[in-house]
Structure formats: structure tokens, C-alpha cells
């Protein structure tokens, strides 16, 4: 058995959150003032409240040379911290990492690019920042330019580049590194589909030459295409390590189904009112409770309730409110006189495509136009960044607006 390319043992990273100063950096004045205060106060901890926060805890794994590892997890799971430790930007609090060979990391597209410099100059600058020497860059220069498709603009300052050209050039430089280990953070989110494909291909070639690739992305499709092994992080801890399909499935399902099911406390005056809701479920279109719905997928809300007596003109309603308290949509059932008993109402969404984010659900029951139960600020619908949309992923962000439903668009040549 060969020596692992990367060996991570009990890795942990702790940050101290200082609740006193909200600024990102400290002021000398504050430090002096605090020191002065603490001289006079008996309890040294009285003047500042520090909270320890573990961004990563007890991470251990090994990677064989040539492995392609995909690291996945929600925002704040510790993916970036792990990459930063592996690329030696920040130091772990405990644990140890042993790496065999040269590491090149691409945590951001175009790190060190200078807007005033031309494409040619930036290739040299960025290459050397990423760890190439001058001879190496010169040797690969033509290849990089061809890959980035910027031949005509080589002597134009990159500040005049379109964002697509900029990204292409930046990735092209990084793709031509020849390190033993290549670390890539979410950088493919930018750039068009064709170029993304080209990048993934290039990264696969890299690992074909026996190099190890570590890749972080929210794009499950890209991760599945590129990686063989997956590592799922949740709140700084390693959840699963294994074949990529297994790990992505685990991630999609959500690590706990708790947030999909809401048990509603029975109101005190339950006998007086017509009835009450006791359970709400967020489900995928097949009826499985899920905590997060992928962008573009259908979902449904199931509400279980009881009616104590015959309810005239009974209506069940569902409201959808954005996280900034902006009402998006309300739907309600046809008024109908309804007998006492246990019921469920199913609100199926198969037309509205919402952008990823958190939404509040409002559920109301009414009789004869009067609401007798109103559930607000309790149930959340999360639309995750994982996408089922294949074509227009890159436009799916908050700037695209809340609603992503495609219009009926036709382009007709005029004669």
C-alpha cells in the first residue's frame, strides 16, 4: 500500500468570538481601556465575554495519491476552514495534517490579479503567486492563453475584461499548475456552462496523472461528475466519508429530518373553537418529509388537523412569506361545510419555482370567513442551493429575484 497523499488526524480549528467588540479588528484604544478596567475589577472575565467556537472538530481521513475528494456541506459547515488549513493559510488549533508533495490551492478565482496589469502580466504574476516559477510559466504560457481563449486581449488591462474572460484566464493559470495536490474551492460557480465543462475535464486530467484533487462545491452535479470520494461536513464535524454517490445522497436527504415535521401544540381552548392543527409536514413531491427542497423541485405541505364539530364554510389557507416579511403568495381551499373528524389538507406546489433561501409558511383555518387558527412564524420552508436545474444554474441566485419560473420566450428572425 502506498503512502497516503494526505493524512488528516483529529484536526480541529477553534475561533474565539469576542462579543465585546463588534469590529473585525481591534482598536488599541479599546485594548488599553479594557486592560485598565480589568485592573480595578476583581473578576478578570467581567469585562469581556468570549465565546469559543469550533469551526472544525475531530476531522480524520486519508487520501490515496490520485484520489478525487469532494467536500460537501451546508454553509458554515467548515468546508472553507478545512481547505484553508490544508493549504497552510491558517493554522489548526489541534491535530495534524501530513501532506506528501507540493500543494496548490485555488480558493478564489484570480487571487492576486491586478486590475491595472494586462492579461499577459497577470498570467506571470498569478502563476508565481500560485507557486510556479518563471520558466514553468513561460513553458505553459501559450497553453494557458489558448485554454482561456483570450489571445486578442493579452495586452489589455484585465480591468477591461468581461467577467467571463477574467474567470477563464484565472482558472486557466491555475489549471496548468502541476502540483501533487490541487485544492479547488467553489470557483466554477462563475463562468458559462461550456467553460465549466472544460474546467471539470481539466481537473479530471490532473488527477489522471496521479495527482490528488480536493474539490468543494454546492453544485452536486459537478461534484458527482468529478469526484470519486465524498466527505460530508456538518457544523464542523465529519458526518460521512465514502463513495461520492452515497455522500451526496446523504446530503440531499438532510442529516436530520426533524425540521421537516412540525408538531403544533394543542391550543388551550381546543374545545371552544371549531378545531385545531396538530401537525405540519414539509415534503418533496413524492410525499417524503424533507428539510430542504432543491431549487426547481416541486414540494408540498401537509397539514393534519381535527375539527370538533360541524364547521360551516370551512377554508384551509396557506401563505408564503419571504424572509424579509414580504408576502409572496396565498392559496386557500373552496369554502365547504365540513363534518367533525380528523383531516389532512395537502397543498401541492407544482408551478412556482422559488430561488434558494428560507421562506416562512403561514397556515390558517377559518369558518364563515372568520379565522379560528393562525400559525405564523413557526414553519420554515428551505429551498436549498442544490439545483435540479441543469441549464441555467448560473443565474440562480438572489439577484435573479424570488421567482425563477421560465417565461415562454420565442426568438423569431424578422425575414
Amino acid at each position: 500500500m502506498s503512502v497516503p497523499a494526505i493524512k488528516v488526524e483529529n484536526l480541529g480549528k477553534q475561533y474565539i468570538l469576542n462579543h465585546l467588540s463588534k469590529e473585525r479588528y481591534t482598536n488599541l484604544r479599546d485594548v488599553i481601556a479594557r486592560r485598565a478596567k480589568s485592573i480595578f475589577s476583581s473578576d478578570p472575565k467581567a469585562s469581556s465575554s468570549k465565546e469559543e467556537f469550533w469551526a472544525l472538530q475531530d476531522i480524520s481521513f486519508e487520501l490515496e495519491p490520485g484520489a478525487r475528494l469532494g467536500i460537501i456541506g451546508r454553509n458554515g459547515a467548515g468546508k472553507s476552514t478545512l481547505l484553508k488549513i490544508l493549504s497552510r493559510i491558517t493554522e489548526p488549533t489541534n491535530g495534524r495534517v501530513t501532506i506528501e508533495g507540493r500543494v496548490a490551492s485555488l480558493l478564489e478565482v484570480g487571487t492576486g490579479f491586478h486590475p491595472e496589469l494586462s492579461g499577459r502580466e497577470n498570467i506571470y504574476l498569478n502563476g508565481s503567486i500560485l507557486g510556479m516559477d518563471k520558466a514553468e510559466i513561460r513553458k505553459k504560457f501559450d497553453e494557458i492563453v489558448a485554454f482561456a481563449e483570450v489571445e486578442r486581449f493579452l495586452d489589455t488591462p484585465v480591468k477591461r475584461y468581461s467577467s467571463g474572460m477574467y474567470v477563464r484566464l484565472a482558472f486557466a493559470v491555475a489549471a496548468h499548475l502541476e502540483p501533487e495536490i490541487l485544492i479547488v474551492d467553489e470557483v466554477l460557480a462563475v463562468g458559462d456552462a461550456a467553460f465549466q465543462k472544460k474546467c471539470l475535464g481539466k481537473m479530471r486530467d490532473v488527477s489522471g496523472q496521479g495527482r490528488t484533487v480536493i474539490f468543494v462545491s454546492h453544485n452536486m452535479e459537478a461534484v458527482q461528475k468529478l469526484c470519486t470520494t465524498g466527505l460530508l461536513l456538518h457544523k464542523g464535524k465529519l458526518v460521512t466519508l465514502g463513495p461520492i454517490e452515497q455522500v451526496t445522497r446523504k446530503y440531499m436527504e438532510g442529516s436530520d429530518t426533524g425540521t421537516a415535521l412540525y408538531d403544533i401544540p394543542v391550543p388551550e381552548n381546543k374545545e371552544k373553537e371549531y378545531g385545531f392543527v396538530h401537525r405540519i409536514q414539509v415534503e418533496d413531491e413524492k410525499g417524503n418529509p424533507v428539510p430542504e427542497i432543491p431549487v426547481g423541485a416541486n414540494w408540498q405541505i401537509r397539514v393534519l388537523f381535527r375539527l370538533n364539530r360541524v364547521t360551516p364554510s370551512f377554508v384551509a389557507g396557506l401563505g408564503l412569506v419571504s424572509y424579509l416579511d414580504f408576502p409572496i403568495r396565498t392559496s386557500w381551499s373552496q369554502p365547504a361545510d365540513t363534518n367533525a373528524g380528523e383531516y389532512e389538507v395537502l397543498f401541492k406546489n407544482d408551478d412556482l419555482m422559488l430561488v434558494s433561501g428560507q421562506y416562512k409558511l403561514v397556515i390558517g383555518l377559518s369558518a364563515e370567513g372568520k379565522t379560528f387558527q393562525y400559525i405564523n412564524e413557526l414553519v420554515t420552508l428551505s429551498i436549498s442551493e442544490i439545483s435540479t436545474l441543469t441549464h441555467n444554474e448560473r443565474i440562480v441566485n438572489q439577484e435573479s429575484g424570488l421567482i425563477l419560473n421560465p417565461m415562454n420566450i420565442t426568438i423569431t428572425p424578422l425575414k
Partner: protein
Amino acid sequence: MPSRIIIEHGSKSKSYWKDIWNYRGLLYFLAWRDVLVRYKQTSIGIIWSLLRPLMTIAVMWFIGWLFGSHVPEGVPRILVVCAATLPWSFFSSAFSDASNSLLVNSNLLSKVYFPRLLIPISSVLVCLIDFLISFAILLFLLVVFRFNPGWKICFLPLFLGLAFMIAMGTGLFIAALNVKFRDFRYIVPFIVQFGLYVSPVAFSSDYIFKHKSIPEAVKFIYAMNPMVGVIDGFRWCILGNSMSIYIPGFITSIVISVLSLILGVWYFRKTEKSFADVI
């Protein structure tokens, strides 16, 4: 056989200085970038490298002339001013650029690994390049005034090295502090301005050292400023016999420069591992 990297908390790299040597290519490119970028989109470009020190020299000459500061017999005032302005400009720009260098390059610090020391070193190097360009002004003046500095000019690199050490040491120290305490960003311009008044740029050290009514203690405090040694040294090298070096002051300068370099490097190494977390 590829190299093995071990990442651990508090691990001290045994190959710290070797690493920096291995990354010398990046040092070159960082300096190259700063030089290239400096005069982009200016119409006269590199001429600014000459124009800026020329303007400073002109102002210093005018002030010296206005207040009638002492100039030795047979030496043009402009040469006395120039011999002091060039090393002072080098020090002040190198010191302030190095102090701010980490903040200016914060995106690099938080996204890529390389020996952190390279950033302040490269900004001092850029200022050194500026110094060498502006040195042409001095050579030109020497020719115009047919002034022969003699063999002593061979010692010039020694004093330049001393200035380099001072700028590097103080620059590293402030740069590392600046990451955590941005207050230093505002203190640096003040230090530079204050330094100009207590260094013999617009006047001559002879005036202080040879003046009988100035107490010894004041002379000693004056000599504690390491730039006094550097500037006196420059004048001694360039203007020849008409200038003398005050030896105790000169030794103080050397000791303080070495100390500042040691302190700067020590503090920088002590704090550099947390740069990415706090910047």
C-alpha cells in the same frame, strides 16, 4: 522525492529561511508588480521616479537657503541637501510602504500560502529600486558641479545597507502590529513627519554635535535616531573631507538598527501565523 509538509498547531518550520529562498521568484514578481502598477495610466510614466525626489530636493534646498543653515566651505548647498534627501526618502517610503504592505495585500494573505515575510520585503525592495533611480540625480549633480567625492564613496553601500535594515526592522514590526491594530496606519505618517524634523535633512549634524551650549544628554538622544548615522554617513561618503562622522553617534546608529531588525523579524514571526485569521 517530493517534499513532505506537516501542518500542526505551533509547528515551527525548520526550513523557514530556505522557504523564503525557494519563493524568491514570487518576491521578484511582487516587486515587479508594484513597479509596473505604480505609473500605469500616468502620461509621463517612469519619469515620476525622478521627478518626485527632485521636487523634494528642491523644497529642502529652498528651506535650507531660506533659514541660511550651515553649509561647509566649497560645497554647493544642493549637494548637501541631495546627499541627505535621497536616503531619507528611501527610508520614509520603505518604512511606510512596508508598514501598510500586509493590509494592502490582505486578499493574498487570506487566500494563498507563501512565506508572509515576502510582502514587506518586496515593498522595501521597490523603494530600493526607486532610490537607485533617484541616485542618478546625485550623480548628475556631482558632474555638473565637478565635485569629486573621492575614495570614501566606496562606503556608500554600507550606509545604504544600514538604512535598509532600519526600514526593514521597523517596517516589519509595524506591519505585524497593523494587522491587529489598525491604529498604526495613522501613527505611521506621523512618525515619518516627526522623523524628518529630528533627522539632519534640512540641517547638518555638525550643528548639533559641535554646538557647545547643547547638553551631552540631548546630543545622545539625538544620536539615538538611527537615521542620523545613515544621513551623516551619506554626507561623509559623498561630500568628502568637509564632513566628519561623530563616531559614538554612528555606533549607536548601528546598534539600534541591528536591534530594530531583530525585534522586527522576531515579532513578525511570532504573529504571522494568525494573520489570515485576524486581517
